Structure formats: structure tokens, C-alpha cells
């Protein structure tokens, strides 16, 4: 079982391919017919570019593509994945009033035991030392919404007798939920304070759980019950207007 998320797996495969393929099949890749592919490999050798590609996909697509790449790689040679480290953290943190905790984990594969982990980021003034998990606390007050959270991890270890320093960093979006309900209470739109839609987020209307679509919208077959509580990712987003609660339609914060 891989400790990484699907996107992290894809990035690992892509980075390993970009490193190994020119070594194993350099002469073949030097052919003119592979110019475009060779340039793509060069670009993907940059971790930020590979992560950008992975983040542009859904988890399912990233998983499928990583499997395809590994299968095709196995057809032409032995699959050798390099040591890899990734921060496992939520893409977005939905804040509620009060103190909010954000959990960061580091996943490592391909390194020998005994590596050292160093965390740095916006939540730690002096940096944090934790082997696997570090908790960041974020306080939401009435003064304003804090900015996105930046976290970076550096893992110093050894692989195959050589010292390896692996680094990964993440940016977690901090969002304050915003709920928009239409008049007949059958369509609900979930977004944040910057009007970024909550795509494929877990929401709850009353006692029923749903999942938003790719536009951050939830369509109900029957109108939502007036006064029902609506939450997103466990954070209260508002309530359905109408009796018995106070009347009023539109945006609720």
C-alpha cells in the first residue's frame, strides 16, 4: 500500500521517468521523431511542473495515469522509482469560528530508517521537528480571514548507501464557507469567501450527506427542509432559509 496520495504517486512516477528514461534509452530518445516527447520529459523533470500536472487532475485520473505509466514503463524496461517524500495535507481548510487545527503528515518511501524530518512553514515561527505528523493551529477571528497556509518538509536520510535530502512543500487554501441557495431550495452552491467553488466537497444538508459536483453545486430532488443546518467538510456553512427559522433567501454566512 503506497503511503502517497494518487497525485503524489503520479508525481513520483513522472519524476522517476524523467530521470531514468534519458539514461536508459538516451540514444533512442535522441531521434528526431521524439523531439517533442523529449522536451516534455525535460519539463516534467522539474518537480513543480510535475506537481502542477498532478494537481490539474482529479485523484481518479491521477491514479489511472500513474498506473498506465508504470505498465508502459514495465513493457520497455524495469520500473525503478526513486525515493520520494510528500506532505499529506488537505488541499483546503474550511474554517469555522474559533481555533482550527490543520494536520500535516509526511510520507516517505525509498529511504532507509533513521531519517530526520524538518518542518517549516507559515504556521511555525521557528520550524517544527516532528517525525511524521505536525499539527498547525489557525485562529479565525473577526479581524479577517488568514491567508493560505504554507508548509515545507525536508527529510534527510540515506538510500542505497548514499545520503539523500528530499523536500516537499504544500500550500493549503484557507476558506470560509459561503452558501448560496435558490428560491425553491433545490439548488445549493458552496464556495468560499473568495468565491472559489467547493468542488467535490462533502456536504451535509440536515441529516443527509451529499457531494458537490465539479461546479461546487448540489442539486436536490426535493426542496431542502427550511431551517435545516448545512455544513461542508464538517464545518457549519449556514442553514436553509424559511420557517421555522428566520425567513430570507440568498447568501448566508
Amino acid at each position: 500500500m503506497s503511503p502517497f496520495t494518487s497525485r503524489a504517486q503520479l508525481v513520483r512516477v513522472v519524476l522517476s521517468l524523467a530521470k531514468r528514461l534519458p539514461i536508459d534509452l538516451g540514444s533512442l530518445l535522441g531521434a528526431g521523431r521524439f523531439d517533442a516527447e523529449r522536451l516534455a520529459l525535460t519539463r516534467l523533470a522539474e518537480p513543480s511542473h510535475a506537481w502542477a500536472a498532478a494537481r490539474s487532475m482529479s485523484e481518479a485520473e491521477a491514479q489511472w495515469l500513474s498506473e498506465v505509466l508504470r505498465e508502459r514503463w514495465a513493457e520497455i524496461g524495469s520500473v525503478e522509482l526513486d525515493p520520494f517524500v510528500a506532505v499529506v495535507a488537505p488541499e483546503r481548510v474550511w474554517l469555522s469560528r474559533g481555533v482550527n487545527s490543520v494536520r500535516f503528515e509526511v510520507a516517505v518511501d525509498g529511504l532507509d530508517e533513521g531519517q530526520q524530518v524538518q518542518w517549516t512553514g507559515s504556521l511555525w515561527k521557528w520550524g517544527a521537528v516532528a517525525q511524521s505528523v505536525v499539527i498547525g493551529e489557525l485562529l479565525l477571528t473577526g479581524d479577517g480571514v488568514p491567508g493560505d497556509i504554507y508548509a515545507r518538509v525536508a527529510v534527510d536520510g540515506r538510500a542505497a548507501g548514499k545520503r539523500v535530502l528530499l523536500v516537499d512543500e504544500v500550500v493549503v487554501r484557507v476558506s470560509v464557507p459561503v452558501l448560496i441557495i435558490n428560491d425553491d431550495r433545490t439548488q445549493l452552491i458552496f464556495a468560499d469567501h473568495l468565491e472559489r467553488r467547493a468542488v467535490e466537497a462533502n456536504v451535509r444538508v440536515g441529516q443527509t450527506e451529499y457531494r458537490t459536483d465539479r461546479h461546487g453545486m448540489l442539486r436536490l430532488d426535493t426542496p431542502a427542509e427550511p431551517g435545516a443546518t448545512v455544513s461542508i467538510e464538517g464545518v457549519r456553512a449556514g442553514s436553509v432559509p424559511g420557517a421555522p427559522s428566520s425567513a430570507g433567501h440568498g447568501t448566508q454566512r
Partner: protein
Amino acid sequence: MAEVTPRDDVYTVASLLAELDRVLHPLQRGSRGQVRIAPSFPPALPGAGGPGPNSGSMSGGGFLPSHGKLGGVSSNSATREAARHLGGRLAPEASDSVIFKRDERPSVGGAGYGQAGVNHVRPAHGPGLRTAQKVNNWNTGRIQASKSAPAPKEPTSTRIPVSIRVKRESPVRDSGRVPTGRNGGAAASKTDVGRRADELDSLAPTRLAPPLLSHSQSPGASHRVQPPTTARPELSRWSEREAALAFDVANHASLGGSSEPLPRPALEPPLAQSTPSNAVTSERGRHAEGEPGLGTPRRAFERGNELFLGAMDAADFARHTADPVAVSRRDSEQGQTQHSETELGETEPSEPELDELSLTEPSGANNVFHDAPRGLRYEPGRRGKALQLSHREAERLRRRLQTTFLEQALMRHR
């Protein structure tokens, strides 16, 4: 030009891997590791023409009969190559050779023991049969003399490789050697031909082995060529007595002495109706190397059974002896029983099943390899080993199996 996104780069790499796979492994993915090297098709004969000229000469110094029945003419090394592929032998001088076309094969008398196979035959050098002389008459158009007449001097170019397959179990294949070359040990001299012809006269008709070639009695009769998958060696079947005995033993053993025996099925030995063509010719080659002949039809018949048992190997034999019903049913279900047989052990002698591997029509020559039933699958090493089972060994094995089944039946009966 559209901007290339990082996502596109990943898909580009995926396509690159697929392209590299195609470059590095041109074969399809499913066919990797399954490349089978089979005897290649014989090369096409250049200038395959119609009936041969009426004159006695041909291009390249060959000799053609005046019957005009010879079709494809080969005067290059392609024929030799093809013959080598197909297991036959070609006389050193036979580069100027004449190949019969399939539908123009001569009709020379025979009892229908022949089965397809590619052999290059000098019929006059055969086992000393009258019919063999007829073959020679037909082939060359020169030997018009009677049986005791000395064979005329043949020019070098008169060696005519005939593309005719002979049934493996034909007694004739054990009753004499087939000459394969002028200078080789199998090739007989002209005096030898005359001497053999004289020996033929002294033989009674009952002692005459069936002719070498599978032809009908009428020289002018047309042949119906059977496809390779339907041709069956005749002597591969058990005799009626043996089949009945085996079935009764097995039936008695299986029923435990029941009063209602099972209906006796038509035994279908799994010996191949689709005999690999080159396997047959390899046998032919073995025969051509000088196998001791069988004097009488009875001996030839025993030899045929021996071949059958050897080809089946001991396991198949035991399987058949144990449960011929199941075997027959299974063979029928597998579609391997493709010939009609009205009675046990009887075949259709009126229709010699010629399974020709015509050099001019090589298609289908290799198709039988995959469909060959068990026991006759094209396995050169195994086949040669199986044929080494002697008649005595086979008979001893059969008796031991019968005894075993009888003992089992008696124990059940008790």
C-alpha cells in the same frame, strides 16, 4: 499553436512510452514469447503451367511424358528446397523435376492404402510391383514394356518427383524401400528393376503387398483429393477383433458384470485424421532409408498396428483400452472425428484419401499443426521415440492391460 500544459506533458510521456514499446517490440503484445517456427512454405514455383508438352523434353533438360497430364514444372532449386522442407528426398539430378498438379495426378491401381505425403518416387524402383511399373509407365511414358521386359535406360532427367502422399501404415511402406536417388543406397539400378519385376511375377496375388501409391485401379480415373483434415490412415484403426476385445474388457470392467453391456461404439483412435504433413513425410523418409520389409499382408497388418500403437504411445493405448466409449465420445465432442465410418474397423477403400502437399499449392500444409489431435501432435522428437515401440512391446502392454481390467472386473463381480 496551443499552449502545452503540464497535464499535456504527462500524456505526451505516456504516448512516448507506448511508441518506445512499439519500436522496441514490433510484435504485438499478445504474440510475444509465442513465436512459433514452423516449416516454412515452399517457395512458389516459377512458371507453373498447364499440361506438359507432348514431346519428351522440357526446358532444362527434363523429360516429360507424352500423356500431357503433368502440370507444374519446376526446374530450379525451389523444388529441392521445398522437398527438403517437406521431408521428402530429392534425387540429386531432380532439379529438372516435374510436379504433378493436384487434380492431374495419375491414377494407378491400388487398394487405397495410400495417404498424402510428399515423396519423390521412382516407381520402377519400388517394391517390385506391377502397379509400380504402371506408375512408371504413366510417369515417363516410356516404359511400355511388359512386366518382364527390361526397363529402358533412363536419362538423368527422368527422375520425376511425384507429389503424392502415402499412408503411413500402408503395408507397402514396410515391404520395400523407396528409391530416393540415383546414386544413393535406396536407388536401384536398372538390372535391379528387372530383377524385381521378375520377382513380382513369381508372387501370388495374395502375397502382393498393396501398391506403393494410392491410386484407383483405373489409370484414367480422376481422383478426389481429400483435405488434409479428413484424411485418415487406414491401418491406424484397430482391427475389429481387437477393438471388440478391448471394448468388452472395458465394458465388463466398468459395468461390473452387468447384464446389459453398453453398445459397442465405433472406435475412433485419436490417431490423426489430420496428420501433419511433414510428419508423414518424415515417416516416409524413414521408410526410404531402408526399413525391413514385411512379407505377407498379415505381417504388414501387424506392422500397421504396431505403428498405430507406437504413434499413440502407451498412455493413449491404455486410455483407449480402458474406456473407448468415453474416448470416442470425447473425440466426437472435440470435433476430431471427421470421417464417416459405418462399421467398426471399416473404412472406405474405394476412395483413396490422398492428402497431397502439392508444391504448387502449399496452402494448408502447415495448418494441421495446431489441429492435430493428441497423440499425433507434431512433435518430431516424441514421434520418433514413440515409433520405436515394437510390436512385441505393444502386444505385451495390451495383454497386461487386458489382464488388469479382467482382474478388476472379476473383483467387482465378487
